[in-house]
Every structure is written in C-alpha cells, then in structure tokens.
C-alpha cells in the first residue's frame, strides 16, 4: 500500500516536472531552449551510467559508442524507410540494447581495469566503423531530420523548442523508468552484486545474468540519448561521438553522485553551463585566448577533484546523508529526553 502510494507520488512529480518545463520553454530565448535540450540528452546519458556503474558496479568508458549505435540506427531508419520519429527512437533503444547485451555478455567475465579497457577500446573503435559502410555516410555522416514541429503548435514555435520538448519528454520518461527499476528487485540485485558478489550469489541472485541485464538496459538508455543528441545537431557522424563524449558523461555522473539518481540534473547542467560560464569569466577578466580555450576543461577538472575529495557520492547524496544523520541524532536526543 505504502509502495503504491510512493509510486504514484513519483509519477505525479514527474508529470509536474513536465508541466514546469513546458512553461519554462516558453519563457526563455532560443539559445537557452537549445541548451535545455542538450541538458535533457545528458540527463538520459548520465542516468544510464548511474544505473550501470553506480548500481551494478560495472565501469564503462565506452558509452559514447553505445550512443553512436542508437544514433546511427535511428538515422538509417529515418533515411532508408522514413519511419515515424517515435519508432526511430524505439529502434535506437533496441539496437543499442542488443549491442549492450553482447558487450555485457563479455563484460560479465571482466571487471575493474579489464572492463574499463574493453569499453575504452569500443569508444575509440566503433564510431569510425561508419567509414567502412556506405550506408552509414562515412566521415561526413548522415542527416537526421526529425521534421518540423506540427503546425498546430503555431508558426512561432521554433525547431529548437520542438527538440527541447521531445528531449525533455524522453528524459522525464527515462528517469521515471530508471527510478522505478532501481527501486525494484532488479535494482536491489544489482546493488547486492556490487556490494559483495559472493554474498549476492549465496542469496540466490544470478549475478552474471544480473550484470548482463544491467548492461543491456543501460545501453538501451544510452542509445536513446545518442539518437536525441543526433536530433539536436541534425546529423550523425563518427566525430560526433568522440572519446571525450564518453568521458564527459562519466564526469557528469561523478559530479551528480554516481550512486544516486537525484543529482542527475545537476551533473547535466554543469556539463552544459560550465563552458559558457568559463567564457563569460574569461571575457570579464580580459584573459588571453589560450586561457579562454582551456578554462572550461580546468573548471570541470577542478570540480571533479573537489567532488571526489569532499563529496565522493555527489553533493545530493551527501546532503541526504547529512540530513538523515541529523534527524537520526535528533530522534536519539528526543528519545533520551523522554
């Protein structure tokens, strides 16, 4: 009964979030709407890492490659068969999930640096495979056009607002799915396996299967993020999925707090806002070009180091833990006084 109530609260909150975003998109200028769409894409990508690394305990340095799989699947279907855009996104999820299942089957036998190395190789190698097949458009890539917004939305409705709506809706749905998955028996099994694999096996959890499942689902979500990323830039090409994308998503996850979904928006906002913030700071200070160019990297690296040193589980988790401790302490004092 309590669980059902909690579920409905979550659903209400996500719907409320959607309504807020809907009104927000009408209040800000076009650049902010575009950045909002990018934030939504990062939210999805980061939540896929949190599921995989934070909960299932598997490291992936190659999520950029899985995003590329989703993006290419969606673009090829759109170009070759002119499928409705929603179907393209569904297939993007499925294609990346299949890729993830294959990778996960291999990954289940690997851990630590070996798994990191394998996924790293994937991030470097996979996107450039597109150069080998004509249907994938080579280095120049393929166009990925989701089409104009429906006329019913009015002539003033910009393309970027349309991207934002699609990406924000996808982000809300995927966060809701991930949230519920993590709170389900699967989520508990992943956590148990991450904590102590032998103990988890003793309780009857098939940890190998559980890990493959985590990889598959995480890859599917990454595929969706990839297809949405391709939507925001209108094209798919190998250079859109560089190694730095995999690292950026992982950085966002660490900044967000890798073991909690709560900070995922924070991680995504940091990734999108920092470069612009750095630009503003550099110009205020009248800094040299070399400083302007390297400042975003410096700020993100600094934040990453500070996060790992002071809030290793992310600021949100830290805040939650402190509050829990505080209220436990208060509860204790209260009891003593009685």
């Amino acid at each position, binding site marked *: 009964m309590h669980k059902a109530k909690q579920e409905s609260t979550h659903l209400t909150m996500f719907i409320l979030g959607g309504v807020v975003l809907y009104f927000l998109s009408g209040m800000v*200028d076009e650049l*902010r709407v575009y950045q909002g769409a*990018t934030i939504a894409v990062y939210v999805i990508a980061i939540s896929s890492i949190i599921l995989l690394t934070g909960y299932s305990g598997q490291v992936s340095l190659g999520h950029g490659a899985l995003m590329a799989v989703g993006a290419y699947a969606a673009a090829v279907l759109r170009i070759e068969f002119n499928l409705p855009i929603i179907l393209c996104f569904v297939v993007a999820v499925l294609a990346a999930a299949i890729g993830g299942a294959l990778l996960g089957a291999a990954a289940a036998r690997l851990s630590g640096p070996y798994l990191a190395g394998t996924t790293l190789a994937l991030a470097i190698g996979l996107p*450039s495979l597109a150069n080998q097949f004509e249907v994938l458009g*080579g280095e120049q890539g393929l166009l990925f056009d989701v089409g104009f917004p429906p006329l019913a939305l009015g002539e003033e409705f910009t393309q970027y607002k349309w991207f934002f709506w699609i990406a924000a809706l996808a982000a809300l749905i995927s966060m809701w799915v991930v949230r519920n998955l993590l709170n389900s028996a699967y989520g508990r099994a992943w956590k148990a396996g991450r904590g102590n694999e032998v103990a988890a096996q003793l309780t009857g959890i098939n940890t190998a299967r559980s890990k493959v499942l985590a990889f598959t689902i995480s890859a599917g979500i990454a595929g969706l993020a990839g297809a949405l990323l391709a939507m925001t830039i209108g094209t798919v090409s190998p250079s*859109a999925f560089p190694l730095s994308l995999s690292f950026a998503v992982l950085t966002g996850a660490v900044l967000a707090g890798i073991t909690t979904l709560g900070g995922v928006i924070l991680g995504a906002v940091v990734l999108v806002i920092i470069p612009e913030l750095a630009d503003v700071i550099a110009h205020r200070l009248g800094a040299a070009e070399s400083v302007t160019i390297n400042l975003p990297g410096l700020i993100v690296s600094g934040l990453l180091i500070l996060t790992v040193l002071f809030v290793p589980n992310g600021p949100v988790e830290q805040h939650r833990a402190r509050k829990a401790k505080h209220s436990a302490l208060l509860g204790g004092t209260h009891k003593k006084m009685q």
Partner: protein
Amino acid sequence: MKALNRRKLITASAVLAIVGLASTAIPAQAAEVGVSSTQIKLGMTLPMTGTASLGYNKIPGAAKAYFDYLNANGGINGRKVTLIVKDDRYVPTEAVSKTNELILKDKVMALLAPLGTANVKAVASSVNPARRGVPVLFVNTGFSGFADVKKYPTTYAVLPSYIMEAKIMGEYIKENFAGKKIGLLYQDDDFGTDALAGFKAAGTKFAVTVPYASGSQNAAAAAGWITKFKAAEADVVILFGVSSATSAMLGVAAQLKYAPQWMLGSVGGDATTIKLTGVPAGVLYNAIGFSPVPATTDMKDEYVKFFSDIYAKAVPGSPFDLNVLLGMNTAFMTAQALKAAGINPTRKSLLEAIDSKGATFANSALVPAGYSKTSHVGLTGYWVGKYSPTGDLAPIGGTYVTYTTDSGSGPVVKSTYKRPAMPAKGLPN
C-alpha cells in the same frame, strides 16, 4: 520524509536549471544583427585544441591580424570588424552549440571560415543558417557539395574541391608521366572517394591503390604501404591523405631509402606541418605539390609580402605558412565582400554582393573563383610546383603554371587567368 526530501531535491534542481537558463539578458536589436554604427561582428568556430587543431589553430590569429590592420586603417566605412572565435574541438556537437552561441547570444552578422565537412553539415542541418539568413562565408573544406546553392543558399565554398584536385593531378600525370606506373595512397572515406571520382574523370590508371582508415596512419602502417608500392614497382606515388599520413609515409621512406617520384595532395602537403613532425626537408626535395595560392616563401609576390609583413608584426615568432596565408586571404576577401555590401551592410546585401561581384574580388589566389547567383563554388584550380631542397613548394622553373576545372565532367585546362593587382595598401576599394 523520504518523499519530502526528494521533492526538495527536484525543486532545487529545477531552480538551478531556471537560474542557468535565464541568466543572460537579450541585447537590443540594431538595424541589422551584428552591425552597429561602430562595428561589424563576425564569428568563427574551428578546432583550437585537440589533435585536429595542429596548424588550423593559426587561422584565427591570421584572420585577426588582417582585420586589425584593416581597422587601424579606417575599417569598413568607419566600422571596425570584430572576429569572435570559439573552439569546437573538431566535434560536430560542439560546432553546433558554439555556432548557436555566436548567432543567438553574440549576435554576429555572419559566420566566417568554419572548418571540417561534418561540422559544417551539422551546423547547416541543426542551426540552419540558411533559414535564419545568416551568411556562412568561405568554409574551410574541400567538399564539393557546399557550392550547391539550392541545398546551402547562404554558404560559400573557397577551397578548390578534392575532385578538382584529383582531376588536375590526373591531367599532370598524363602530360608528364605517360607510361609510368602510378601508385595512390588515399584515405578510405569520403575524402578518398572524392579523390577516386576525380582520378576516374581524368582517366588515370593505377598500378596499385592503397587505402588507409582515418586514424590508422602511423610508422608501422607506412612500412606496410611501402611494401605494396615496391611490389607493384610504382614509379610515381601520390599521397592523397592528411598531413599525418604524408608525414608517416615520408618519414619511413627516408629510413628505408625508398624514393619514388612523390606527388603530394594539398591537404597533406603543407611543408611546415610535415617538417614539424621531424621529416627531413631533403625527402620532400623534387616532390610535386599543388596549391591555389602563391608559395608562402615567394616574397616577390605582392600579397605574400604584404600578408607576411602584417603577420610578423601581429604574431611575432610564428612561422608564415599555408594556413596563415589562407586565413589572411579569407579575411581579405571578407573585407571586400563587406565593402561591396553597401554603406549600411545587411546579411541580405552581403549575400547579394558575393553573388554579383564575388568572382572579381581581389585576392592572392592564382586561379579564379566561381561565385555567381547559381553557384557558390570557390577557387577553381591549382598551380603545380616542386618542393625545393629546403622542403618549400615553389613553381617549376620560377613560373606558376595553373590549371582550372570543375567538380563535374568538365575538362582540365591550363588557365589564362591573370590575377588583378592588389588594391592600394591592401584595403578594399
């Protein structure tokens, strides 16, 4: 309690997002975006950091050096030209977001010299400068498609296409190496596909062709390529790849004392970049090379002398190479386009000026540009030269022999183009 905390978290995150999204105010609109009574704002995105930035990161400094000179001499009808440069790291996602910043936040009048085919395509599709009426001047890529007025109505190419280059190479081979065995090293993607199409149009027959995947070029791979060219007994070897492929090949060839007649494509043929990787200058000696603009060491050329003087003062100690020359040449053409766009230039009048007068804009190139209402093709050919003992490309026998052609099935002809004299003081007239 737990639910309450979560709600607070979501509220906090939402507030953060709102603050982030709404933190910048929108400046007031002038008569034309990016044009005020005192300045004209232009924007550029290109790789300033990362592996792809080598050499190209000198382009903004070169363009700014010319604009500073122009501004010091009265600007364009009293307006100073300001260039805002953003680093896209050669990643399309970055190119799109930085271009959005340039157009929507910095409010530039036009985009200048963006680099890389995938990036320019992504920007054309997502940012859609054509729909916004934003001119995209003189893109730094040899992809022939950007000359298509129907597909990219506000975009202008400047470099000759890869197809043109291959066709001209094919013609040169027909004239000078008939009956010789020809080998070709090319990149196994669209860059190479365009090259193959050009050679096919020129009727060039190869004894051996060696493709390489982008990113795979290194010394070990180069040793493998040499084995293949040796086995086919190639007399002439064409290197139609990027600088790193040319450098790897020439470096290993020097060690193995393998010395066929080299022919270098312009993309990977910049001597300064090749020599920076440690390839001895002597290996380049007598290799054949191609360029649309004069030799960078040709101080008798009025443009080279003028540009190198300005650059030496603006960026002391930085070598004057092909990237610098092309960057300054682009800025030079831009200045003329802005001047031709009228006393109060608008985006529309700028586009019209290039369409009607672009083919006659003075610039350093030794081949004509093909701008018109129906085509945005840039420079249309190359001169053929040989590398000197110091490894610098120079015209054979001291005279520039230029060829022109198109990206289709048109013939390759020796050009009779006579470059107009440089305007007085290098300022647009």
